[in-house]
């Protein structure tokens, strides 16, 4: 056998060599595409999320520190941002970091609470304005994969209109079986004082658009005795509405 190779030492044919090179390149590229690149992408996304968490912690600590000290206290923070978007949201009273991922580092129902910070995954909420219940008036519509919620649209922050909390929620709809509930009253009463449920004010979307982590409406209620905001939140991928009172005070 050895003699055979010694006699016929001509090398492999150029066609075979080319095919081998193509094959090896294809295997190399495939390996890179299927294993190496996703691993790099995963590492990159993980790094941005870790950085986001650290930056949020820094800002959260500074905010609480400034709040605990007196009027006029001032702090500056320097942050390195490699990705994602940070938003100071006065309307919903929070700071939010959002970052779209594709590497599958998190699943759609991921949730984590670390100190004062909450991490959640998913951004299929939508906030828009249209006539949801076909009553001829435009509603503020919070929508996600499961629900649609129609909230009364009334007034603006510069021009208050009549606001009765009994009619704030106009419709809730489960999308996959078109099941609706139309409350005849969804009122809010503070400290058992009936007149705190109505007055004037306005309602508006906190942020309009698609692909949001949550869709929110702010309703400002200005009554004879009390003033307050109500935040209606529909998170991505959930089948429940969150209702929270904030900035409430007596006149």
């Amino acid at each position, binding site marked *: 056998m050895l003699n055979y190779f010694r006699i016929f030492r001509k090398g492999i044919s150029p066609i075979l060599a080319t095919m081998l090179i193509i094959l090896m390149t294809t295997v190399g590229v495939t390996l890179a595409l299927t294993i190496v690149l996703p691993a790099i992408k995963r590492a990159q996304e993980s790094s941005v999320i870790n950085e986001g968490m650290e930056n949020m912690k820094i800002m959260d600590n500074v905010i609480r520190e400034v709040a605990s000290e007196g009027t006029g206290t001032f702090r500056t923070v320097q942050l390195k*941002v490699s990705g994602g978007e940070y938003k*100071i949201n006065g309307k919903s009273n929070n700071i*939010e970091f959002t970052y779209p991922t594709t590497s599958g580092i998190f699943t759609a129902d991921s*949730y984590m609470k670390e100190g004062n910070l909450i991490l959640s995954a998913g951004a299929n909420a939508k906030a828009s304005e249209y006539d949801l219940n076909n009553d001829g008036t435009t509603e503020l519509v919070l929508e996600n994969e499961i629900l649609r919620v129609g909230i009364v649209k009334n007034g603006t922050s510069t021009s208050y209109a009549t606001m009765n909390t009994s009619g704030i929620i106009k419709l809730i709809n489960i999308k*996959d079986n078109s099941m609706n509930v139309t409350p005849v009253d969804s009122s809010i009463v503070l400290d058992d004082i009936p007149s*705190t449920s109505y007055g004037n004010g306005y309602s508006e979307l906190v942020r309009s658009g698609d692909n949001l982590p949550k869709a929110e409406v702010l309703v400002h209620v200005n009554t004879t005795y009390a003033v307050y905001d109500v935040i209606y939140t529909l998170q991505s991928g959930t089948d*429940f509405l969150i*209702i929270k009172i904030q900035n409430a005070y007596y006149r």
Partner: protein
Amino acid sequence: MSKHQIELDEEEEKIVGHYKVEKSLGSVEKTLKLIIREFGKLKGRKGLIGKLRFCLLISLLVFSFLLSSNAVFAINTTRPQTVAFNMIFRLNNSNTDDVVRIPTPTPIFYTVDDVNVNNTQYSSNLTHAYVCSYDNVSYANGTTLAMIHSGKMEDLTYVNFYKATGSLYYTLKLKQKIEGNQLIMPFTKNTCDLVESKMTVIEQQTIPNKAFSAFTQIVPSSLTIAIRSVYDKLQLNGTDRFSSGEQKICFSNEGVNNANKPIIWGRLC
């Protein structure tokens, strides 16, 4: 100033001092006893100082009454403390098949139909902080709507179910402290058993991380991660957004708002 006057002034101080102690105890009875005792000492004393002391004692009496009736505190309270959320509705075109569940140690169920009920259950008598309604007759998979208290159990005041005879609708009501709490209102498939089964999760993490029921959802190719910090005890102002790069953010304390919470202004600087 005469010696007699100094003695009287000292005595007045003593009375006021006593009053402060009594006020801190918050006992009208004790304050009244003190006033009667001190009033007894005034017997035989006449003149301007005696009358002044009499007026002072009467004022103390009125003030202690106001304190005990909470009227003074009510006037001085600047922030509402509680909120009651009401929902008047029905789950189908009729309420015949709607069932209300209240999670007391032995759960209470009402088939709404034509009952006449006004049932209030305080948090101390509830195993979990919710009131729920469902209909699994009109809908094969059931439909449910609940009001769930999200926060500490002691911050829930009560839940209530109200239905008057002949009424086409019924009321679910939940009252809670405002500070640090919120209402979760699921509207989903299934029955109140589903809500009951999720309560442990809600009690642990406040807001559930996923839907109560399983729904067929298209898995998106991209998933957005959101990290947020929410504030209850301060008012955060600002609208700035920022992304990649070196960023400098300034936070300043701008005083307190009408709700007596610090106003923090955040902006790029």
